[in-house]
């Protein structure tokens, strides 16, 4: 018969193993990519075009493409997401319409990314005739990011004390004036922090851009928003599954994975550090 104490020890041991396993998984992911990717990572890799059927050269167009498309994503998702959050937190009453809006946000965040891709194809590429382009892909990613931006922005608005609003209203400010002068300035840093996390996820997404603008190989940088573009995540997909000499380009694939991981995780880190600093500031 096992004693109660041994049983507890075994149980807690199992829980600790689970946690270590999760840490281990993250460790393996980061270690493998860094260990095998860093050897190709030279300035030339980041700053030149792919050459010889993408078996040599750099990944500059993929980097530029990802940056460009993420800018479009931000331009769509940040204002709309913040506006929606302001409506929900400052104006909306607890009624049927508000519940519908909240339900929509929760459901949108569960829609698979490939379905956003299909939606982007019908709406932006075909109906609005934007073609497969930076613009179509960015707008598609922007819509996908919207629910995350809204949730994060609302959290930030919630953390502004009610006395800020009341103080302003008591001095004769209108509702909008109170929001503009006494709520938004304190909420915007928190809103942006959450938004960066959303944008990082969008920058790493592949499925929504597969058919809305990402290109297999382009020997030039996108010159306008209606051009197709290369993107880091799509380039990694191509280099690891679709290329004619997969074994030969494995180092380039690892390098691309490292750069992509670096971009996405450093955006995450910025958000995490910012949040930590904001929290500290609030406590003081």
């Amino acid at each position, binding site marked *: 018969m096992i004693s109660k104490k041994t049983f507890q020890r075994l149980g807690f041991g199992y829980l600790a193993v*689970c946690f270590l396993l*999760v840490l281990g998984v993250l460790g393996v992911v980061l270690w493998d990519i860094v260990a095998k990717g860093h050897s190709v990572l030279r300035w030339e890799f980041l700053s030149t075009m792919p050459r010889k059927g993408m078996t040599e050269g750099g990944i500059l167009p993929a980097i530029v493409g990802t940056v460009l498309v993420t800018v479009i994503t931000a331009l769509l998702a940040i204002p709309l997401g913040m506006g929606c959050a302001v409506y929900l937190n400052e104006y909306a009453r607890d009624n049927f319409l508000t519940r519908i809006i909240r339900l929509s946000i929760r459901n949108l965040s*569960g*829609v698979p990314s*490939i379905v956003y891709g299909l*939606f982007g194809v019908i*709406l932006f590429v075909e109906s609005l005739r934007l073609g497969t382009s930076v613009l179509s892909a960015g707008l598609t990613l922007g819509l996908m990011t919207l629910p995350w931006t809204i949730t994060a922005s609302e959290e930030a608005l919630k953390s502004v004390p009610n006395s800020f609003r009341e103080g302003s209203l008591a001095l004769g400010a209108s509702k909008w004036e109170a929001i503009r002068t006494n709520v938004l300035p304190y909420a915007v840093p928190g809103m942006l922090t959450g938004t960066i996390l959303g944008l990082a996820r969008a920058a*790493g997404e592949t499925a929504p851009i597969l058919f809305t603008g990402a290109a297999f190989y382009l020997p030039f940088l996108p010159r306008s928003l209606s051009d197709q573009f290369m993107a880091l995540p799509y380039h990694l*997909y191509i280099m690891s599954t679709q290329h004619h000499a997969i074994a030969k380009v494995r180092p380039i694939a690892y390098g691309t994975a490292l750069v992509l991981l670096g971009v996405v995780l450093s955006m995450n880190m910025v958000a*995490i550090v910012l949040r930590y600093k904001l929290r500290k500031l609030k406590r003081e």
Partner: protein
Amino acid sequence: MRRIKERVIHGLFLLNGLIVVFVLLGIFVLLVRTAVPAFKEISLKDFLLSKTWNPTALVVEPSYGILAMLVSTFMVTIGSLLIAIPVGVGTAAFLSDVASPRVREIAKPVLEVLAGVPSVVVGFLGIVLVGPFLARIFHLPNGLNALNGSVLLAVMALPTIISLSEDALNSVPRSFGEASLALGANRWETLVNVRIPAAFSGILAACMLGMGRAIGETMTVLMATGNAPAMPTSFLHAVRTMTAAIAIELGEVAYGSAHYYALFAVGLVLFLITFGINAISDVMLHRYEKVNR
């Protein structure tokens, strides 16, 4: 004048708030509209119940049965949950009941970083790490199969399952645990017999949300499961999920063909499944919040 301005601003924010409703409705309506033409040529019964998906058949009639993809999708997903739930709930329980505040502080960014790893990178690791590993263990020519997909999706579902289960455990009223301890139960017994049952619907909702994410995941399964469109017979066979089928075929299909519309019909099925799962977990989460209040 000031009043009118306030009204206008209020109205603009309302419109902005309504955008999400329009987007969700828009996704649904456009998917339905683009999927419907497929059923001029395909019977709904064949679409849902036939095992053969072969839209590009030249000699025989092309066939558009999604049953094999549907089974593949659920197989990979259930496999991933079998891995992710014991590990995820275990980690959540560790963080809420065993770990020191210091460890908990470290765990939060770790989970965020893990959640931040792009799906295409996870898929790449499926090809270069998990695949060769599985091939060696099971003596296979390559390790690109349903099991590989399950392992990778488990990794991707873990952050969701852990952080939401931890929230659920943390929101169990303290008095529950204290009552159990006062009656002579130790911390492990309290966790298993009192705290986890009290948080059960929250944990279940967390697992359902993890499942929803796994079903909709595209790049990892596309890269790591081998893409054989036949009905799967074991976890060591290559499979093609619904998401992978769309990703592979939409790029090559002729605009306006039956095949094109059929792929949107697959997308619609995918949308409805994830919508259903999210709705159920939403209801569970809501009920659970009410009970705890």
